[in-house]
């Protein structure tokens, strides 16, 4: 479903700030795979996600989605196939527009936008049913402006909007990091539920190791622009946080201590 082939990206090339963000990344996700990505800040996780979404283009290498080479597709064209939830709850929704209008925009993601009424009776019913599943009572506030919602509510809405049209790929960029633990758990459970419902192919970045272990069937660890560890289905189930730390030390020959706080366990 998703294939990254020899992806390279260098920032600030030929300056003292030169940074190799991605170094020969190869990655294949099969349909229905749910992969979690961990690694310290600057490891290249977000850069990789931005490569997939199209907000960044690779210096070298190809990206393939659903069998199509999309390397040269601009972001808006790719996002027909990609649902995305950002870390910042403000980023995924339009604050001055209503809940139903936001959903209507997500609804026309994979259709051509034309001069027809965006919210009609039929669609409103679809939106209401979808919102009911969130259990946040949003279905009774269809005409409330999204700016009035709390961070958790907005993130739940973003998640719904991202998965609304069953995209080929779902990208989650630390989408629970800005929430308090209780809300984060709600969103985590919701993620599980929505991904399982449509068997979405998902790539999720997280700084929360427990979350990385709980969710998904595959796990990768990144460091300095490389994928240093890949754990597959059965092995992943047996994985624990201390094992993961040991693994990092074995590969890199250095302790992960400085990252303990970041990886929050």
């Amino acid at each position, binding site marked *: 479903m998703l294939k990254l082939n020899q992806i390279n990206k260098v920032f600030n090339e030929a300056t003292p700030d030169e940074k190799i963000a991605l170094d020969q990344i190869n990655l294949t996700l099969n349909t229905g795979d749910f992969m979690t990505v961990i690694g310290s800040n600057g490891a290249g996780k977000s850069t990789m996600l931005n490569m997939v979404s199209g907000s960044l283009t690779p210096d070298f290498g190809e990206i393939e989605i659903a069998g199509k080479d999309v390397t040269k597709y601009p972001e808006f064209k790719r996002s027909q196939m990609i649902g*995305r939830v950002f870390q910042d709850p403000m980023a995924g929704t339009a*604050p001055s*527009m209503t809940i139903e209008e936001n959903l209507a925009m997500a609804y026309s993601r994979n259709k051509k936008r034309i001069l*027809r009424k965006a919210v009609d009776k039929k669609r409103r019913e679809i939106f209401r049913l979808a919102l009911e599943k969130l259990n946040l009572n949003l279905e009774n506030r269809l005409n409330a402006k999204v700016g009035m919602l709390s961070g958790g509510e907005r993130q739940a809405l973003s998640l719904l909007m991202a998965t609304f049209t069953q995209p080929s790929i779902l990208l989650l960029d630390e989408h629970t990091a800005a929430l308090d633990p209780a809300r984060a758990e709600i969103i985590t459970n919701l993620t599980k539920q929505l991904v399982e419902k449509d068997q979405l192919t998902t790539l999720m970045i997280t700084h929360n190791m427990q979350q990385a272990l709980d969710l998904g069937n595959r796990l990768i660890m990144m460091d300095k622009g490389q994928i240093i560890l890949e754990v597959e289905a059965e092995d992943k189930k047996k994985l624990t946080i201390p094992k993961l730390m040991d693994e990092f030390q074995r590969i890199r020959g250095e302790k992960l201590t400085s990252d303990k706080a970041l990886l929050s366990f």
Partner: protein
Amino acid sequence: MFSAVFGSVEQGIIYAIMALGVYLSFRVLDFPDLTVDGSFVTGAGVAATMITFGYHPLLATAAAIVIGFLAGCMTGLLHTKGKINALLAGILMMIALYSINLRIMGLTSENSIGRPNIPLLNAETLYSKFYSFWSTLGIDTTINNFFEMFGLQYLPSTWGTLFIMTIIVIIIKLVVDWFLKTEIGLAIRATGDNKKMIRSLSANTDNLVIIGLGFSNALVAFSGALLAQYAKFADIGMGIGMIIIGLASVIIGEAIFGTKTIMRTTLAVIAGAIIYRIVLGLALRIDFLDTGDMKIITATIVICALILPQYFEKKREKNRKLKRHAERLSLKKEENSVA
């Protein structure tokens, strides 16, 4: 007094169409578009030129709308494809249009290339066409007789202009309301609200900016075409400061009538344009002030419209809090006495 206010209302409605255009760019797209000063004159110039050549005023007005749309699209192209800063793209288009407008109006002159003004004194305009139909109905005398009963003097010669303008502006308001609720309209609003988000929902924000600015400037040019026919001339200088007038209308309207829904906001913008004209008209009747003071009056009106609402909102908030606080206190007292 009455006829002065009447004239202000007539003009205000014409400018309201321009203000709706400014609302689309400034508020909906969040794009400070200065093309307006140029495209307003383009609309007036195209309409006046075609009317002078003998085309039907309806056709002339339609042509003005189309050219205005193209001008707006150009600004959008400069900004999105040329990556030029929004303000600069608008200014560049504005000064380029100055020359283009001279050339357009120059088409009517045999011995020069450019022409700074075109009089339409005896030409057929939308208003004269409509008036010839309207005057057969005898409505003017009926209405004037009615007002004379209340002892009003100096009544307007015709109510037809006001009538037709009201109809046109209501239709445009409904079109704008409808457009902003369509799938494309929603995407345009989201472009002004959260570009990153709507791009991740597979919308080409570049095209949306271009279309939005095109629509905005089409309305501005339409307003220019109507003003030229109303005032019976087109002049190269008639667009100066137009953007501020549009902005003033938007700000005044929003301050007084609120922005709860789209339909309410567009109505507020129209009302804002009319109120602005009335205030300006009344201010100019003060003996001390001269027509040359128009700009400083405009500046004062805009400053008041920006500052006064903050003051009133603060006061309202304070009163509300005082009242609620008193309620809560008395409630507590009751509970205590019960206990």
